[in-house]
């Protein structure tokens, strides 16, 4: 088999446009539209758009993207202040929602639909059509085999048997009889084109589902410290991204409590000492008006409950900090989530005390679960678990900027309008606190305490219970996932059948010679890639001859019965 033959009914690219110099008929508007449509739906254009799509995807992996790496984008603007705005103009930080990327894939899908619809029509016709007339010269085709039928065979009867053999092998058959010869024309593998069409239609399904279906869900984030409870309502989320069509009054107000967050660290293998090997958030979910049910959220094990999925995406320490005014009133008391900065959970947190003290107070804190000192004198954490916890605080006083009504992040402190009182260049050492310890704030503002969650154990030297942990949860609702998975299954089905099912034609011809013997010819034609065509033709020939021989012994003895 030298080359792979194209199916004659394959929807291929159009022939080249007429060369210039040829006098072309004037095209009206419809003519131009038809011309444009043909260009767009040609295989050549589809191929061009596919390659464009591949190339257009590359920049998104080179430049940080707002959707997947917003901090990276901010950093990029800091690092490349001249280049970043130019890149931003061409939507380089939003490649996959950019006008140019969208236009490529939309054109590709229009091209695809324009190609698939006529092919589907054609395929339905082919499914109803009879296999074509047997060619006059089978010798030119693939797997050509000739055989002499067993003696006393009849050409028409031989073809009847060939028809049986082919039909039982899943071929669609048509027989042709004339005075001198009989033949059967057979075709199989219509599933190949069916699969091909299903594959492309399912891709359209995926695009539509992703494009519109995403609008019906929501994604929200919420940080919970051990012991805290969250009610699934809009205001309770730290951040909330509803889809375009999502109605936030439909939120199901169940409650989610983080009872315990447990982490285990590798302690035997020194090559991976301190590497986390398990994170488990033990939670309690209470649907509205129903009994509470316990559950667990793990990194690869989201909790599916009340139409939402709860994912565990982050964790860290939330030291309990208390600030007391000189008169003894507690003006701040909270477990503050500190964001991990490295693998050993050196963590950074912000405390803001706007009211109750003589001045507004801001503190930037570092928490070291296992504090150690570098040769330079800087603190660092040498192990992620609570072996020797230490909290250090740099104190700022002045205007926190909270009264302007502008939303500010709880994870950052704008120090422009503040005066630093401890740490850095102030000459005053940072406040350093062990769990359970307190210190005076500078300028007689009051006292700050690092509350120990389990003083008894800490007194015995076990600090592992002294600081609560937090978990950051993503809570999603996506009603389209079932559609996506279904379309994906169809894509796979379409690929398997569209690429691997061979579509082929096989012919068997029986000619009665002058001496009355019957001459048999077998041949096949691949329609699309078909590595096993010749083997298939010889298998048909072998089965047919076997059937002819068995049949012959039956008909050879009618006189004796």
């Amino acid at each position, binding site marked *: *088999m*030298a*080359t*792979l033959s194209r199916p004659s009914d*394959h929807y*291929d*690219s159009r*022939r080249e446009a007429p060369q210039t110099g040829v006098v072309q008929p004037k095209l009206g508007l419809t003519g131009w539209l038809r011309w444009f449509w043909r260009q767009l739906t040609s*295989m*050549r254009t*589809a*191929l061009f758009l*596919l*390659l464009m*799509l*591949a190339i257009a*995807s*590359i920049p*998104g*992996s080179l430049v*940080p993207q707002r*959707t*997947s*790496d917003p901090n*990276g984008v901010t950093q990029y603007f800091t690092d490349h202040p001249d280049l970043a705005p130019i890149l931003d103009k061409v939507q380089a930080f939003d*490649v*996959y929602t950019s006008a140019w990327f969208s236009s490529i894939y939309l054109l590709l899908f229009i091209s695809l639909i324009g190609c698939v619809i006529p092919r589907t029509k054609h395929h339905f016709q082919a499914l109803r059509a009879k296999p074509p007339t047997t060619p006059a010269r089978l010798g030119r085709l693939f797997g050509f085999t000739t055989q002499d039928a067993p003696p006393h065979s009849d050409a028409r009867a031989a073809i009847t048997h060939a028809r049986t053999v082919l039909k039982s092998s899943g071929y669609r058959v048509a027989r042709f009889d004339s005075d001198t010869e009989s033949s059967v024309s057979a075709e199989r593998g219509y599933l190949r084109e069916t699969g091909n069409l299903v594959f492309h239609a399912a891709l359209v399904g995926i695009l539509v589902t*992703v494009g519109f279906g995403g609008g019906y869900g929501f*994604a929200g984030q919420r940080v919970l410290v051990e012991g805290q409870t969250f009610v699934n309502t809009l205001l309770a989320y730290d951040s909330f991204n509803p889809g375009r069509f999502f109605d936030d009054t439909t939120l199901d107000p169940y409650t989610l409590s983080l009872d315990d967050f447990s982490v285990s660290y*590798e302690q*035997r*293998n020194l*090559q*991976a000492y301190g*590497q*986390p*090997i*398990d*994170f488990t958030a033990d939670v309690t979910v209470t649907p509205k008006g129903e009994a509470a049910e316990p559950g667990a959220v*793990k*990194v*690869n*094990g989201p909790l599916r409950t009340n139409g939402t*999925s709860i*994912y565990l*995406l982050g964790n860290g320490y939330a030291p309990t900090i208390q600030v007391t005014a000189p008169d003894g009133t507690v003006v701040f008391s909270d477990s503050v989530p500190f964001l991990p900065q490295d693998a050993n959970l050196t963590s950074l947190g912000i405390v803001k005390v706007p009211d109750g003290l003589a001045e507004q107070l801001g503190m930037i804190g570092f928490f070291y679960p296992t504090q150690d000192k570098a040769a330079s004198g800087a603190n660092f954490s040498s192990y992620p678990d609570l072996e020797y916890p230490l909290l250090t605080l740099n104190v700022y006083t002045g205007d926190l900027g909270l009264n302007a009504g502008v939303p500010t992040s709880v994870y950052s402190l704008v120090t422009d309008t503040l005066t630093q009182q401890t740490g850095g260049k102030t000459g005053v050492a940072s406040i350093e606190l062990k769990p359970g310890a307190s210190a005076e704030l500078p300028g007689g503002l009051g006292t700050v305490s690092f509350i120990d969650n389990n003083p008894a154990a800490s007194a015995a030297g076990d600090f592992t219970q002294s600081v609560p942990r937090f978990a950051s949860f*993503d809570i*999603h609702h996506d009603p389209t*996932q079932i559609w*996506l998975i279904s379309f*994906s299954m169809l*894509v*796979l089905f379409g*690929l*398997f059948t569209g*690429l*691997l099912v061979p579509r082929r034609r096989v012919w068997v011809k029986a000619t009665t010679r002058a001496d009355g013997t019957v001459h048999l010819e077998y041949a096949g034609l691949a329609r699309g*890639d078909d*590595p096993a065509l*010749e083997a298939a033709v010889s298998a048909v020939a072998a089965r047919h001859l076997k059937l002819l021989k068995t049949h012959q012994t039956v008909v050879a003895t009618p006189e004796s019965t």
Partner: protein
Amino acid sequence: MNLTDSALLNSYSLYALYSAMAIYAFAFIAFAVDLARRSSAVGAIEAADLVETDAASSAGFAASAGSTVTLKRPVLSRISARMDDDAALPYGRSSSLRVGVALTVLGWALHLAATIMRGFAADRVPWANMYEFALTGTLLIMTVFLVVLIRADLRFLGTFVTGLVLVLLGVAALQFYVEVAPLPPALQSAWLVIHVFVASLATGMFALGFALSTVQLLQFRRENRTLEAAAPRSALAPGQRLRFLATLPSSATLENLAYRINIIGFILWTFTLMAGSIWAEQAWGRYWGWDTKEVWTFIIWVIYAGYIHARATRGWRGSRSAWLAIIGFSAVMFNFGIVNVFFKGLHAYSGL
């Protein structure tokens, strides 16, 4: 398993790996010698001008194992020419080729042992970091090659396959090696077994497809030169390099083989993408987020989709589609070697 046993097993795994690499190196040499012999046999014919007119379509010769070259009258019937023997000058299996295949099988067995022992040492599937992924990925490339040999005679690709695997294993052992470590929580999923394994298998397919497409391009150039050498007195273009190409299948045959292997790779890659999406949904809360690794997996998918379409587009069959397969596999290697290590993203599991 206790730690000392694990460390011991891991050191056995390394011994097995280095032995496998040494044996692959010898196999590489044997395969290269075979190619050289093919070239010199073709050269001998060229010199003797023993080939009759129209040799390109009908002459055949067979070399018996060893140094004696016997020439036979054409025995090939073009009508029933099978896939493997439509070479301009079919060449038998030389002793060096047999040695090459035997050494490859031996090297593969050691490679398999190294991978299995690494898995037992780590008490999990041996593909959770770059080193292990390279170990398993190359094992699968080799496995695909050896399995395909049963069905189609692609022994002439031995130089390429052993060479590629040797280079990748060398980089893995020297640059990517990390000690056995437990699975981080993000990788503790059944999808690690499925997603990564199928991705490696697809890579094995694409590697072979790449090799076939490369040879196809070289062969196509040779065939064109042969045609251009107007007087068809010989199957060989005068003074050309890589004369062994005359003993390999025609470019059309190579193209069909490459296509069949690449479509299997494409189906596996599609599955990899889907399995990855399902896993991403469980681990990160979204099935698709244009993470750098996702982007490149998508790019590779689109390139091979383009390759399949190119084969059905007038003017794109043959060399142009072969280039797409070559670009596709280059992107696979880029995705493995560069994106994993240097690009920022969620697939940060290289262990480096």
